[in-house]
């Protein structure tokens, strides 16, 4: 699946570009593709409908029709609109107000509440806050044990109370927190269906009892069309203050983010990107937008690279990517760095065009990388910089040297070229557009 959207957008892109100017028919065609792409990314049907209508307005309007690069314009408009809808980069946590800050986590069964409670605790502990984790899930077998184990691991406070309803557990916890001058109380509630009246009533009761300043919906990033209904129900009951999207470390496009944002208007505050307690990141609209569109998360990649690699090198690389001057040598460098940067599948998803290189999620294994590295390593410096000198006999030599087949060498070269071109295209489309350019800084 991964990469089909990228490919399709590129298709629209080149189709439109070939024509130079844009007529209404190709706009319609492009819109249909965009609609399809969004639906496949699990954006809700109605949200897609509104979205496409809005895009149509701006696309058929003035600039695009007269533009020399209509394809880029359309993609730019879609991307910008997505980012806008996903909202501003919100202040992740509402600190202002009396202490302790009470954070209540709610959501459907298995969405990731307990793990997220611990992740938030971990984050705040690192900022020297005194945290109390509260086990308010009295239904799921061993739910209390699960939270206790996580609290122990983090060495933060833990609160449980047996044989009383969740509401009393929560009020008891907040009382203790006030007494002991705790900064933050995190309530881990049980998963529930939004149509389960008594269980939803229970949440309202807890909220009325302890008045949590943050009421966050924990939503599985793989959720489909039903995300809107669940989010609306929780919002209706609790007047949510935000959303945390989990499990975005897989290959889900996370279209539900757009849906819930559109129907509730509530900000997405964090995203969960793994099972470990440090795998929580602040939400960035531009990243999710490119993810939904399958464009790869360039910013995160660059940020990660900057953490590990020296900044000037990364900046040079970005510039090269934008200008389409990326060489196989740079690419080899990248491959080597990737190894030191973290889990493969996560990183690959951030590289635009990674899918073109055959690096889809299933093939995102070390084996593939090792082979690519071997091929490039078997080239001379000159060959890496000027791949066009690679004639048949050179390719044969490289295949022999790297223990691969000539087809493998050909494929790598072909795909590298495609990636280089695509980066250049996205790069030039971004120049002069503050919004899009912002993505790189």
């Amino acid at each position, binding site marked *: 699946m991964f990469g089909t959207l990228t490919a399709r957008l590129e298709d629209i892109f080149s189709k439109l570009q070939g024509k130079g100017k844009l007529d209404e028919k190709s706009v319609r065609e492009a819109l249909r593709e965009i609609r399809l792409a969004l639906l496949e990314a699990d954006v809700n049907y109605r949200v897609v409908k509104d979205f496409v209508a809005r895009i149509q307005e701006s696309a058929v309007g003035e600039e695009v029709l007269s533009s020399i690069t209509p394809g880029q314009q359309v993609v730019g408009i879609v991307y910008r609109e997505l980012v806008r809808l996903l909202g501003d980069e919100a202040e992740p946590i509402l600190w202002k107000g009396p202490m302790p800050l009470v954070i209540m986590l709610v959501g459907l*069964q298995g969405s990731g509440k307990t793990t997220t409670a611990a992740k938030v605790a971990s984050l705040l502990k690192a900022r020297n806050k005194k945290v109390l984790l509260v086990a308010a899930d009295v239904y799921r077998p061993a739910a209390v044990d699960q939270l206790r184990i996580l609290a122990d691991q983090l060495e933060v406070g833990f609160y449980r109370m047996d044989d009383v309803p969740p509401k009393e557990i929560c009020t008891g916890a907040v009382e203790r927190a006030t007494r002991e001058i705790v900064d933050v109380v995190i309530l881990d509630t049980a998963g529930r269906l*939004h*149509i389960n009246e008594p269980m939803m009533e229970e949440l309202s009761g807890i909220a009325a009892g302890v008045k949590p300043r943050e009421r966050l919906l924990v939503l599985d990033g793989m959720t489909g069309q039903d995300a809107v209904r*669940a989010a609306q129900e929780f919002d209706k009951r609790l007047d949510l203050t935000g959303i945390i999207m989990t499990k975005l470390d*897989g290959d*889900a496009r996370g*279209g539900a983010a757009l849906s819930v944002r559109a129907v509730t208007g509530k900000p997405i505050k964090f995203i969960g990107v793994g099972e470990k307690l440090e795998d929580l990141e602040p939400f960035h609209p531009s990243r999710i937008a490119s993810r939904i569109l399958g464009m790869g998360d360039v910013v995160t990649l660059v940020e990660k690279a900057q953490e590990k690699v020296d900044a000037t090198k990364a900046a040079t690389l970005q510039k090269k990517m934008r200008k389409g001057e990326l060489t196989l040598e740079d690419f080899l460098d990248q491959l080597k760095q990737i190894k030191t940067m973290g889990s493969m599948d996560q990183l690959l998803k951030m590289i635009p065009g990674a899918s073109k290189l055959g690096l889809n*999620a*299933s093939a995102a294994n070390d084996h593939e990388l090792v082979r690519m590295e071997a091929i490039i390593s078997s080239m001379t410096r000159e060959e890496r910089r000027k791949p066009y000198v690679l004639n048949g006999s050179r390719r044969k030599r490289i295949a022999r040297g790297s223990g691969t087949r000539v087809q493998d060498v050909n494929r790598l070269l072909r795909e590298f070229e495609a990636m280089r071109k695509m980066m250049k295209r996205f790069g030039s489309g971004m120049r002069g557009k503050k919004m899009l350019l912002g993505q790189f800084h």
Partner: protein
Amino acid sequence: MVTGAFGRLRGGLRRTREVLGRGLERLRTTRGAEREHALEELEQRLIEADVGVEAAVIIRDRLEEYLRTSPGPSLEELVGVIRKQLLDLMRAPVPPPLAEPEERVAPYVVLIAGVNGSGKTTSLGKLARHYAKEGHRVMVGAADTFRAAAVEQLAIWAQRAGADLVAQKPGADPASVAFDAVTAAKARGHSVVLLDTAGRQHTKVNLMNELAKIRRVVNKAHSGAPHESLLVLDATVGQNAVSQARLFHEVLELDGIFLAKVDGTAKGGVVVPIIRELGLPVRWLGVGEGIDDIEPFSPERFVEAMLAPQ
């Protein structure tokens, strides 16, 4: 009592006809833009059930075709056409034989897998109870050694179901737990073994390799095992489930799907493209959090639920 799509379904066929009625009436009697609109409504309902654009468009096209070739159809006929198309789409190309625990293979080993939080452990508890009620002696293996309190959770389900449990310390090698569970079951005369595994993202190669290893080791402990590998899907999941099914299938050669949480408002329609692409049958539905909230899958009822209003 929670009444989701499946709870409300018990009214059966009539209800669907009533609901689809108005739209279908328009399909029957109008042309041009109005008919177009009615078709779009149907498409919307299907997409909102998570069947994906491709399947929705196929059904829409076939319906259009039908309207073109058989003028003046009755309401019954139209409902029938839509149901039949969905059922056709859900017919696995090569229906794999559904295994049943038999004496001959004892113990019959079932491996449960899926992404994080989909409902594996709960569904396993339900299966344990189901087999125990059928007179089997059930052993449960705690091969999720990763998630906090996973063993404690499973132990409670095993106890509820009247099954025995094999577990090791947190962090132990899951393949070794699975091996122990199967070996112990053989020695102690259990007829069914259910293996719980940790939730994992299907894109994480090392974790998928771990699953492959569990499968290999189980086979070493008992030839022919696992006799059944089930993927547990959360009914609220969207199109990503297709990728999940594909990659779990690659590693485990799945025998079927356990679709959990259909008691919510989500329809779980993503099994339609999964059946279409991978030929994987759905075997069970999870319809609640209780141990008896399990039903064998019936395509007819499933289709009814999918077409029902939300």
